[in-house]
Structure formats: C-alpha cells, structure tokens
C-alpha cells in the first residue's frame, strides 16, 4: 500500500478533510441513485462510486487558479473542486439554478468561476481543450496548470495521442490524469489495449509518467503533488495512471455481464472511503461519534441540495435559444 | 402582338358595342346615334375609356395609340378607324 505516512503534511485534520470530501461524493451519488430511480434525474448518469480517491486526492495538488477538464463521470471532480452540491443537483434536475442552467445535466457540469471546464461526454474530447488551456497559460506566462481527467478508454482514441504528443512537444503545463478503472464501458482493458501498461506507453511521448494506487487517497495526493510540482516547474506534461475501479455499472444501470461479481467484491475490499476511515479509526483520529456526526452533516447538506433542486424554477422554454450564441453586447473574458 | 384580321364595318361596330357593354353593362345603344359622342351619352369617364381602348386593342389586335383617341369619339368614327387600321395592319403582314 502507501508509503506516505512519513510525509510531514499528513496531519490528522487533513486526513479527516480528505475523508469528508470523499464521503461527500459517495453519499451524494448514493442519493443520486435514489433520485434517478424515482425519475427525478434523467438522461445518462455515470457514477464515480469507488473512484473517489482520485478526484479528491488530485484536487489537493491543485490551486484555485488551476484549471480542471473532466469527463462525463465527473460528479466527484466537480464536488472535489468545490462546485456546490446544490448547483450540481439542480443541474441534474434540469433546473434554472443548475450549474449549467439545465442545458447540461449529469454529463455536462461546468463552473467557469472555479475553472471547471466540464463535463465532456466525448471520450478523449477534453484532452485537446486541456492542452489549449495550458497553451494559453504558457503563452501568457501565467504560472498555473491544467489538470485533465480521462479514462482508460480514452487511451485508445486518437485525440489522446495527438494531445499527448502536442503537449510534450510544446512542453505544455498540463497534468494528465488517466483514471484506469479497467473498463472502457464494458470492454476490459486487456481487450482494448495491446499494451496495458498505460504509464509506460505515455512515457513514450517523452513525459514523466507513472502508475498510482488510485484506491488510496493519500497515495493519489502524494503522486499528484509531485507531478503538479513538475508541471509547475516547467518540465512539461506529466502523466499519472490512477489504477482504480468503479463499484457500480458504467452508466446508471447496466447488467454488468462483462465483469465477474467476485472481481467487484475483491475491489470493494479496497474501498477508498472505508479504507481511509478504517485507518483513521485505528489511529484514533476518528471516533464513531465523529463519524456519525460527519454522516449527519453530509446527509443534511445533500438534503438541502435536493430540496433546493426540487423547489428551484424550471428554465423557461422562452429561453430555449439562449446560450447558442453570445449576447451581442457581451464579450468573453 | 396578336395577329390582326381585317374587319368589316359590321364586325367593327359589333366589337365596339360589345366592348362598351362590358364596361357599361346596361348601355342602351338605342340612345346612341352613330355620330353622337358616345362617351358623353353613356357617361364613360377617362378610366372607362381607357378600359375600352384596352378591350378594343385586345380583341381586334389593332394598335391604338393615344394620338388615335380622337378617332374613337363616335361609333361611326370608331368603326371607320378600326376597319381602316385592321386592313392596314393585315395588309402589311407577310
């Protein structure tokens, strides 16, 4: 497992904060399952349950100035980034108060203020964007980086390889975080990649690359910090292969025929949330009472988000054509 | 331009009367002698007269210019004009 115990900044409070952040994602998504089943949330919804350590750990390495480009499985990235639960829930309800004003839904969460650039539902489609965000920073000399999440499926797309090459060629300040959950939808990694060591292949583009235990938030944070540091230092793109696993189906419901139940159970033993909680309990950093209070607090927070989403106004149909082109007087930042 | 067929006096008079009837449906030709100014008798205003010119020109194929309007003052004049013009036009045709 991890060797991060000796790191100086691993204060108990920080570990608790990581737990809270992961637990928020977990509980939020569990509520999403209920709401989806009740048809309050519609469309495609891809759950992050099991992968929380990646989003939460990587976010620790980012500053508010940095940019994040994500995928359609991005509730965790958005929450970790600080996008309010109310705005996300309202978006999934298709409400006017949603973080994309009801235009995006689960797959297209955006928050320009937090430099959260979505919410991209074309596999690998966000990678070139991330390169461009990084290019702009590079050209203007701004000391900030862009973090791009994508899955192992994206590794098969031309856009990944074009972008990896471009980013390495131009030494762009971009942190490439591959969430290798072993399945591209229903196709196992071994069935879609000739060489399954993705970090090794990324290294072939001439960028620093390594694999990380994506089920250990402390390991993730540690790796992300080191990689981000390298990126900030002007050493070009870094690639992290986060070895992780999703506990639930690809999309909201699928038959999961492509996976062995025993495999899922094995991975659940490495649940990143409960794993950290267990360690904190063992280290006497988290009492059962404190855990209960945390759960209560998160439940109340999510209740509020759901209630707010329920009562939020619908986008008026008269605004259907809004946001197709910019209003005439507006000019972009 | 439609083809012009030479008209006889009778044909010409008939065309004129018919045309006037289309403009003034209740025109009573028993009140109009050949040398009366039919525009006055039948109260054709300038628009009516223009319509008459259109009809005559359309139905006979004869070209009627503004300069010819004085020829269309009485039934007799108009008949003479149409016959003469139709002969001339037809005669010059190949």
């Amino acid at each position, binding site marked *: 497992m991890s060797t991060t115990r000796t790191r100086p900044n691993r204060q108990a409070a920080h570990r608790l904060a990581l737990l809270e952040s992961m637990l928020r994602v977990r509980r939020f998504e569990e509520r999403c399952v209920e709401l989806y089943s009740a048809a309050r949330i519609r469309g495609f919804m891809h759950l992050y349950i099991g992968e929380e350590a990646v989003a939460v750990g990587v976010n620790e390495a980012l500053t508010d100035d940095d940019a994040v480009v994500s995928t359609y499985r991005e509730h965790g990235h958005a929450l970790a980034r600080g996008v309010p639960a109310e705005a996300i829930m309202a978006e999934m309800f298709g409400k006017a108060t949603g973080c994309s004003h009801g235009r995006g839904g689960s797959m297209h969460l955006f928050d320009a203020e937090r430099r959260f650039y979505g919410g991209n539902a074309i596999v690998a489609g966000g990678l070139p964007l991330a390169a461009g965000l990084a290019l702009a920073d590079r050209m203007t000399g701004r000391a900030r980086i862009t973090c791009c999440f994508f899955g192992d499926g994206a590794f098969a797309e031309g856009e990944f390889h074009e972008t990896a090459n471009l980013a390495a060629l131009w030494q762009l300040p971009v942190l490439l975080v591959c969430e290798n959950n072993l399945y591209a939808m229903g196709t196992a990694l071994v069935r879609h990649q000739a060489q399954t060591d993705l970090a090794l292949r990324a290294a072939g583009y001439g960028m620093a690359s390594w694999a990380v235990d994506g089920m250990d938030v402390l390991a993730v944070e540690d790796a992300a910090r080191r990689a981000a540091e390298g990126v900030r230092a002007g050493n070009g793109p870094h690639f992290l292969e986060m070895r992780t696993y999703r506990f639930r189906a690809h999309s909201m419901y699928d038959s999961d025929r492509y996976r062995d139940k025993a495999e899922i159970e094995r991975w659940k033993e490495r649940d990143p949330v409960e794993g950290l909680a267990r360690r904190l309990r063992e280290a006497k950093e988290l009492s059962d009472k404190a855990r209960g209070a945390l759960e209560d607090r998160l439940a109340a927070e999510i209740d509020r988000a759901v209630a707010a989403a329920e009562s939020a106004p619908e986008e008026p149909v008269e605004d259907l054509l809004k946001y197709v082109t910019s209003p005439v007087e507006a000019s972009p930042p | 331009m439609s083809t012009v067929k030479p008209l006889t006096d009778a044909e010409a008079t008939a065309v004129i009367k018919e045309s006037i009837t289309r403009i003034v449906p209740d025109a009573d030709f028993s009140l109009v002698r050949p040398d009366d100014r039919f525009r006055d008798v039948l109260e054709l205003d300038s628009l009516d007269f223009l319509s008459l010119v*259109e009809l005559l020109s359309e139905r006979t194929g004869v070209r009627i210019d503004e300069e010819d309007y004085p020829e269309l003052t009485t039934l007799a004049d108009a008949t003479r004009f149409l016959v003469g013009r139709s002969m001339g036009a037809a005669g010059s045709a190949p």
Partner: protein
Amino acid sequence: MAEFTMPSLGADMDEGLLQEWLVAPGDQVRKGDVVAVVETDKAAIEVECFESGTVGRLLVPAGTRVPVGTPLALIEAGAAAGARAGSRAPAAAPHERPEPRREPAREAPRAREREPAGRPVRTAAGPAQPQPPPPTPSPTPTPTEATAALGAGPLVRHLAELRGVDLTTLHGTGAGGRVTRADVEHAPSPHVSRVRSTPYARRLAHDLDVDLTEVRGTGDGGAVRAADVRAHAGKAAGEGERERPRNGARRTAAAVPAADRPEQRTDAMRRAIAELMSRSKREIPHYYLSTTIDLTAAVDWLRRVNRGRPPAGRLVPAALLLRAAALAAREVPSLNGHWRDDGFAAASEVNLGIAVSLRQGGLLAPVIHDADTLPPDALMNRLKDLVERTRRGRLRGSETSGATLTVTSLGDQGVESVYGVIHPPQVALVGFGAVVERPWAAGGMLGVRPVVTATLAADHRATDGAVGARYLTAVDRLLRRPEEL
C-alpha cells in the same frame, strides 16, 4: 364564447343591414373568415369574424338592419381545429338530425370512415347524385334526403361560388354525404385549381382582381406568370363587369329577396349622402378657393410616358392630379386630417378619398391609403382597381374608411370646376374640373394650352384662406413638374 357584432365599416356608419349570412350554426370558422355580407348605406361589404371556433346561435336573421355593435351571432371558441380533424363525425349522421343546416359545414374528408359500424351511412353514390342546390338559403329548408346529400351550408356554397365549383358535381365526404368545405377546396376549380400559375402571379391576380382562368400563360407548361397577369389586368376590369350580372343573379337567388334590393340600396345611399352633406353644410363653415393650372408639361409628360405602352399600362391625367393632391397634402398638413371634438387632428398619413360616381346614381368615396407614397403607376393601378370594384360593390372594409382628404373630379362630366362639400370629419375637399384647352398668356405670348381648374373647399374652423392658397399653389407647382411626381 365570443360575440360577432355588427362591425363599423366607416366613420359615418351608424347602422348596417345584415344582408346575408355566409355561415350557419355549427359551422367552423377561423379568424379572418368571411362570415356575412353587410350592406351599409354605401355598399355591400363582406365582413370577417375575429374569432376562431364554432358558430353558435345566429342572433339576427338576414335582412335585418341593426346598429353598429349589435351582437349578430355567438362564436364558441376552440372547436375549429378538432372539427377539422373529423372528431365531430359520429354525431353528424343526417337521420339523427332534423336540421341539416345546423351541422358543421366543414367536416374532414375522411369523417365517414370513422363512423361506428352499423350506423347508417350515406355513401357518395347515394345522396350525392347531381341535384340542384336548394333554391333559397332560408334558414329552415325542409331537408329531403337529396338536399341533405348536398348539405352545403352557406359558407360552403359561398366558397363554391368563389371558386366556380359546381356543387352538384361533387361527391360529399361529410357525414351523410354532405358536401364539406374540404370537398370544395379540393375540388378542381375552373377558377383556381386548374390554372397553372406561379405563386406571385396568383397573388398579383388576387390583388388586381384578375381571374386567372382568363389569363393566357406564357410560362413553362403554360404557367401564368406575373407578366401575363399584368398584361391582362386592364381587361379584367371589363370582364368583371361582364360577369357581374351572372354573379349578381346567383347571389340574388341565393341570398336576398330579389325584388327590392337595388332600389333599397339606392335609397339608402341617397339617404346617407343627404344626411352627410346636410351635416357638413350645417356644421362646417366652408370657404372656397380656385386656381387654373397650366397642364402643358403634364400632358406632354403623359403622352411621352404612354407612348409605346399598351393600353393597360397607360396613365390617365387623373393619376397625376391625385398624385399632386396627395403630395401637396403632405406639404400642407393642416388640410389633411380630421376635425374632432372642437379641434383639428392632423393625420400622419395621406389617405385620399376618391369620389366615385356610380352608374345607377349615387356616390362613394373609397380610400387610397398612403396615397402620397404611391408613384403615378401604382396610383393608377390602385385607382383602376378601386373604381372598378366600387362599381361592382366589392369594396373591402378597410377601403371604405380612414380618408384624410377627399378628391373629386367632375372633369369627365365636362364641367370646368367643382366646388365640393366637405366629408366630415375631414376638413377639406379638392376638386378638379375637365382638362380643357384655353388661351393662355405666358412670357408675354398668347397660346393655347391644356389647363385644369383646381378648387379647394376647406373648413374655416381648421384653416384660413392663406393655408388653402398654399395648398393650391403646391398642386400647381407639382403639376408643372410632372417628371418629379
């Protein structure tokens, strides 16, 4: 539920004669449909409704004279679309309906197919045998099976007449074999459907009141094009007159008791003119001005313009006179408008009332709206169209009201000047006499020139003589430079 009321078809209209209903209870109407013919003191006008829905009770029988605003019928909202889809079909079997006239006149073509099995259904082969239409539109004809088969309500018959469709040749697809509006609309119409024409030509034909069936098409496959319609346009006026007796006869047979209508109309008009003119002379302190205008330039210009044009495209002097009158009105706005509530309100547009004498006697002043914006050719076309339809009694509602200044021209009657009576609430009336040749001194030389005497009768409450003089001076100046008109 909305009321269809006696519309006001002119500022001086207090009451109207509901001459004919074109719809019956149960008919579906759409906003803008012509539903009745109203005879005002001046003309018979087809009037439209402003609601969509189902015609409910008719509150006023045809032939009744009622004040403006009187409810004439009830229109129940909302059913028009549904009825078009045939939803009313099952209820419409004739044997259940002692009064076929109360059935929807507009059933969907497939309505019969939806009727429940076992319900007696009249097939087209049965009741739709050729039969003469009911001889009168009296609201309670005895429904024989034969007439029920035709079953055409007044709106359908009106539509058929407009389109020239012979109802007796149609197979009704409505309940019980009734001829529906859709049947008529889909029937090959000698007037409309069979004519191959471009959309623009069709529009133009409508605007110019040209019957497309009589236009020779020169386009692809004999299609009638706009140029064909224009070439035909002048002739159409004459043909309209020719057709009038036929249409008139049919309408009379179908609509009103034949006996007293023309006289009644004439009497009513005489009464209306009498009342209006008396009121004018009673209320308006008239003053009169006149000037004689040298038309040499105008006549020369007209000759030049008309040379080479076919008769249908030629201008008459009246077009130029109207043009000058309209432009001068724009220059002298205090003559163009209305006297209301002890004050003058200038109008923002120049709507010329054109005094048109009718052959059977009487006078109408239909309106050319925004006359100052129409160049001479357009003005000429409007004039021809308007005069022709005025004399056929086919004015549209909007053409009977809104005049801001009236022009009368008695020149065709041979007189040299006319001092008119103002049409209240207007404040002036312009008169033109005949264009005559007179000795004329100009530049110290005497010659013979064509001249016209222009007069102005104006309301002394609104203006003084100086204003009137300015107006006539403007007309004079404008007519001396016809190429700028």
